[in-house]
């Protein structure tokens, strides 16, 4: 079905697409457990309770992408799907102003021209929007980062709409996950999605529906609740938490896990006017 919509690529478009891909390795090395991440095809999940810096980290990644190469950025385009109406444009502009050497309006507009934003109101609309965005990825070859904030936003509403049947409850998200997998592999994207810690971890892990096999899951307050199709797609999981220090400076911790290779790394960062600082 994709072939009917994909136009023939010109040589320059192909080069632009491939250049954009290799550049992602320098996106944010502190965030990943292994060197050389992320690569196209990676699906990275940001998980954590509220106020732990997930959205700020996304602004940081967006800024790294849309700032031109002359300013130290990657100069690639980003597609941001906002399901929570949480995106704060003014905050992103403040971060850009702090990071750019020339803070002119034109420069900011040029950077923002590389960002595309969509708001989705329901999981059905999210699914249909993903279908319609497929065309955009064909037209914009330098669009190589897809961000969804957050993919768990419709969880309770879907669960209530699905009634008693788990299959019905998860139907939309499963379709979204399957289509996202297709999009990510066909168009060579990297996908970042945030999920919220909506539930407390059950005290007795034998009771939990999905038994945790990986070591990192026992430390952090992680209880998987999204559908299996999504969980199997994720290649990296990054847990966010606040550091409870006695000092005044607010620091946050990221625990980054590479799921296939089982590497775990812990790093800390703080949030300043110019965004995330490691």
């Amino acid at each position: 079905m994709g072939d009917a919509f994909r136009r023939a690529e010109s040589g320059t478009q192909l080069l632009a697409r491939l250049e954009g891909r290799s550049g992602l390795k320098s996106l944010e090395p502190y965030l990943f457990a292994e060197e050389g991440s992320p690569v196209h095809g990676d699906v990275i999940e940001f998980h954590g309770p509220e106020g732990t810096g997930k959205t700020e980290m996304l602004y940081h990644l967006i800024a790294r992408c849309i700032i031109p190469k002359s300013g130290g950025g990657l100069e690639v385009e980003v597609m941001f799907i906002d399901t929570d109406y949480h995106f704060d444009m003014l905050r992103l502009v403040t971060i850009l102003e702090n990071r750019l050497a020339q803070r002119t309006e034109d420069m900011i507009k040029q950077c923002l021209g590389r960002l595309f934003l969509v708001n989705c109101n329901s999981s059905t609309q999210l699914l249909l929007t993903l279908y319609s965005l497929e065309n955009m990825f064909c037209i914009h070859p330098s669009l190589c980062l897809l961000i969804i904030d957050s993919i768990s936003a419709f969880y309770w509403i879907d669960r209530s709409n699905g009634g008693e049947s788990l299959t019905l409850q998860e139907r939309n998200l499963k379709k979204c996950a399957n289509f996202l997998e297709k999009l990510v592999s066909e168009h060579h994207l990297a996908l970042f999605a945030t999920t919220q810690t909506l539930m407390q971890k059950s005290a007795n892990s034998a009771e939990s529906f999905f038994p945790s096999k990986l070591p990192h899951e026992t430390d952090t307050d992680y209880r998987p609740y999204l559908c299996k199709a999504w969980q199997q797609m994720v290649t990296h999981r990054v847990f966010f938490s606040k550091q409870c220090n006695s000092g005044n400076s607010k620091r946050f911790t990221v625990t980054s896990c590479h799921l296939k290779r089982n590497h775990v790394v812990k790093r800390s960062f703080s949030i300043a006017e110019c965004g995330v600082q490691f």
Partner: protein
Amino acid sequence: MVVLRAGLCPGLTEEMIQLLRANSIQTVVDFVSSDLEDIAQKCSLSYKALVAVRRVLLAQFSAFPANGADLYEEIKSSTAILPTGSPSLDQLLDSGLYTGEVTELMGAPGSGKTQVCLGIAATVSLSLKQHILFLDSTGGFTASRLHQMLRAEEEEEQLEALQRIQVVRVFDIYEMLRALQELRERLCQQVVSSMEPLKIVVIDSVSAVIYPLLGGKQSEGLAIMMQLARELKTLAREFSLAVVVTNQVTRDSSTGPPKPALGRSWSFVPSTRVLLASKEVTLEKATTQRIASLAKSPRQAVGIQVELDIGSGDVTPTERL
């Protein structure tokens, strides 16, 4: 789930729908996610026609991406910062209440949430001459207190200011959702014909209508709460309103720090959160001093504290923004 029916979009005829239904394609999602070449063969329909219908359906039901630069222009021109009536609270909120966002005031009973809400209503009505919608779910709204806050003004101005504040008493979640629906209809009309501007909605309190729904193993309560959250955020964003809600506090243990009530799912909803607490005094008598601290903010560092006096509440007109 939108079901396919004739006339949903041009090109979708009744015979087409019957043929599709015979192949178990009933909703828009089914149609969009199926392989059109396959369908064209099975239903013996024209592939071109199917592609055209698909394109129109997607344009109708999916969200349209906006470019960052255009969105920035729009937000610059439509965002306003509203004063709360208390300069120290304004300072805490980075010059005031931002439109397009949900701000939460949380505090124990008696910490001054309703007083601050009344102060906001009085200030916005008096100095900015704008309309306010006040949804009262606790019965704590008293017009006489508002009148007292405005007593420094001339009588005519007092009357006008009070007339601009619309109070709706809602005592359960469905009444609240209905009031918000009416607000939405009114704002849609306002966009078309420039009627009186409304820039702020104050909800005191949101926990009073949601508490009865939570608890137990059913998730319907949480689903309705998230629907309310979604409605508030969409209203704030689409019509550039500042939405102020008040909430209770709970603690994890008797000595733990206060956290907002209504659970984890609600905690993601507001962009800014302010904790109101009484100032600890050595004397036994009640005081009108309160301490407001910033618990969550998209712009400022968390933990800033300011002192408020909710007693005098004389609203002095601030400069127009």
